[in-house]
């Protein structure tokens, strides 16, 4: 079946602009994660959604970052007033349930000029 889909695959924008990144999880997967990966670095946890429970937002680096998910479907990660340090690959992963393997999308490569 279809895997995790992320769009856009690449985004170049000017400093100060807002960006919205989209993640379509695997159908039926109740858990959804967002991570940030800077060049040559590890994965930095941002936010986690599980079903209709309150999300775990503890990894969001500042109030410029926010994310939404409606039910068990699409999620969007929004970065307001982008800064150059926001340049990274943003990865989304979904899993069938809590404590289950995570399936990653190909990521969105975000470049802030």
């Amino acid at each position, binding site marked *: 079946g279809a895997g995790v889909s992320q769009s856009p695959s690449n985004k170049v924008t000017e400093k100060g602009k807002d960006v919205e990144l989209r993640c379509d999880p695997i159908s039926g997967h109740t858990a959804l994660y967002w991570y940030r990966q800077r060049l040559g670095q590890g994965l930095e*946890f941002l936010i986690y959604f599980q079903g209709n429970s309150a999300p775990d937002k503890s990894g969001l680096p500042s109030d410029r970052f926010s994310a939404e998910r409606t039910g068990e479907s699409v999620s969007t990660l929004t970065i307001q007033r982008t800064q150059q340090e926001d340049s990274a690959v943003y990865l989304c992963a979904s899993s069938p349930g809590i404590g289950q393997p995570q399936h990653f999308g190909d*990521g969105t490569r975000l470049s802030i000029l």
Partner: protein
Amino acid sequence: GQQVMQIPQYQHVQEGEDFTTYCNSSTTLSNIQWYKQRPGGHPVFLIQLVKSGEVKKQKRLTFQFGEAKKNSSLHITATQTTDVGTYFCAGRGIASGTYKYIFGTGTRLKVLA
């Protein structure tokens, strides 16, 4: 907060040699997952360990979870060029209260033919 370190950061081996990466958490883990990320790709799930002292094998790969559930290792026997990539562990803290996973810093493996 929970931190997960991996050593070594980089490893270059001749094809046929063995390779081991070690993962150490600052807190006790509920479970640990291992992922492989090929250059330019996204992380791909390898295995999950749950029980104290657990050992699992996948062909040439052997995974161990420490007795105290604070460390883990991945050992590859007789490396091949297809093993090239970065190996990440990801742990969920037993006292975290959520199902977020903290990824280790990763070990980048290069295999020389």
